């Protein structure tokens, strides 16, 4: 194990009841880097993120962040430690305003980094007092990311952030992720290979619950990645 790593995953096995979903996953995330997981639907990418974030009970192996084990820790405590998971469903609290949605992001830590959020997503500033239920898909995704970064997280686990969004918003998110990765490590599950290749430092290709390859450096090109999809 490299002491410089922020997040280390070793021998991670996950099962839903009888069926096993992930086999012996090993993964390292350096501080300030972007790590991407690619693979087909159902390969177990989302499960990997969820099990790191503490949402899945049946997990064995080791997951450590800064030397602290995350296995068996409750999901909200993991989030409190600065490991924020952004699910793919783009569900915001539609009955609450944008400001209230954001506020809840730092409920536990009471650390409100408003400037950062409005800096990345100026659009949210104008929408502050609108009910989140009236936002568009792109605005919801911005809100979800904004909600997570308000409390200065150490690691962001992002599940399919660009799925179903307009190209202009995807481009905006790409810039934000790139900018963000200077302070926060990102683990992104994504199908959009051009985006992944543009920002990721390391790519794990996952197939049928196993990591089949690890791409770094100049091998991160879209057509090589495609071979693993």
């Amino acid at each position, binding site marked *: 194990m490299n002491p410089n790593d922020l997040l280390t995953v070793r021998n991670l096995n996950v099962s839903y009841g009888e069926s096993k979903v992930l086999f012996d996953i090993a993964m390292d995330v350096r501080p300030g880097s972007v790590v991407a997981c690619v693979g087909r639907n159902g390969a177990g990418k989302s499960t990997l993120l969820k099990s790191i974030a503490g949402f899945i009970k049946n997990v064995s192996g080791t997951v450590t962040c800064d030397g602290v084990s995350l296995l068996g820790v409750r999901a909200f405590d993991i*989030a409190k430690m600065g490991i924020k998971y952004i699910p793919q469903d783009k569900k915001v609290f539609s009955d609450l305003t944008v400001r209230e949605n954001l506020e809840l992001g730092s*409920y536990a830590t009471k650390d409100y980094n408003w400037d950062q959020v409005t800096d990345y997503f100026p659009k949210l500033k104008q929408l502050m007092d609108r009910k989140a239920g009236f936002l568009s898909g792109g605005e919801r995704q911005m809100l979800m990311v904004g909600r997570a970064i308000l409390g200065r997280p150490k690691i962001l686990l992002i599940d399919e952030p660009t799925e179903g969004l307009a190209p202009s918003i995807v481009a905006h998110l790409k810039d934000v992720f790139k900018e963000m990765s200077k302070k926060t490590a990102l683990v992104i599950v994504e199908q959009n290979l051009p985006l992944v290749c543009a920002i990721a430092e390391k790519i794990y290709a996952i197939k049928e619950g196993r990591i089949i390859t690890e791409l770094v450096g100049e091998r991160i090109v879209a057509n090589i990645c495609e071979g693993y999809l």
Partner: protein
Amino acid sequence: MIDTQLLISGVIFGLSIGSIFFLMAIGLSLCFGLMRIISLDQLLYYSVGAYITYTISVYSGNMWLGALGGLIVAGILSFAVERFIFLRIYERDIAFTMITSFGILIGGVGVIKAIWGLVPRPVPMPIMTQMSIMGTEIPVYRLIVVVIAALVYAGIWLFLNRTITGKAIRAGIENVEHVEGLGINVYRLFTITFIIAGTLSGLSGGLHAPLIMVDPQMGLEVMPFIFMVVIIGGLGSIKGTLISALIVGQVVSIGSLIYAPLAQMAPFAIMLLILLVKPTGLYGSKLLKR
């Protein structure tokens, strides 16, 4: 037709009954909204609230002090029950929690019988004054009950809309998993909600005590009405609960003026009608067990 005097007193009577139903049903509704449990044991806290009110008002002669004591004891009791029982079973399905809470309810009624006996007890009305509204004599106590319920509604509204914890609870009613993902200890929210529910149930029992006789089965007697309120309003909706409590209160009171057995039958008929049109009640969402 019914003459105006009877009608006015009927409306006030309905308002006060509706207020008590509201205080009681709000707990059930909130617990369902956030934790997805049907907490039948709220009816136990209602009875406990009434009995504590009775005991304290016998010894101190002050019913208000009794109601205060009742809501405090009910709150403490609900906290204990939540800690020792519900905390272990939140993740089970709804039938499971419902049966467990029913067990708590009848077990608790057994304890009440053991402590206070089977004889119905009267609680004196603290204010005997009558007030004249448009030539009709109205007991002031009933008006005070309505005012208290209105204050509680305002308080709950402020809590849910103005405090961060309340906002987290509203968010949790929409999606508990996302709230958890934001680093919020949802079990603490559950505990807070459960205590609020239990306390309000205790308060409604205390306020109801002078209007009826306090007896061990009182929780089971009020149960169908509370159910109707919750079903008509839609589980999990505070606004729906308020509106349906007022409807049921009026139907019970005006119905009994027209033909006595209507008091029980009419709300039931209305409930069936509403379910026929909207199977989740007036404001109920399509939320399922998470």
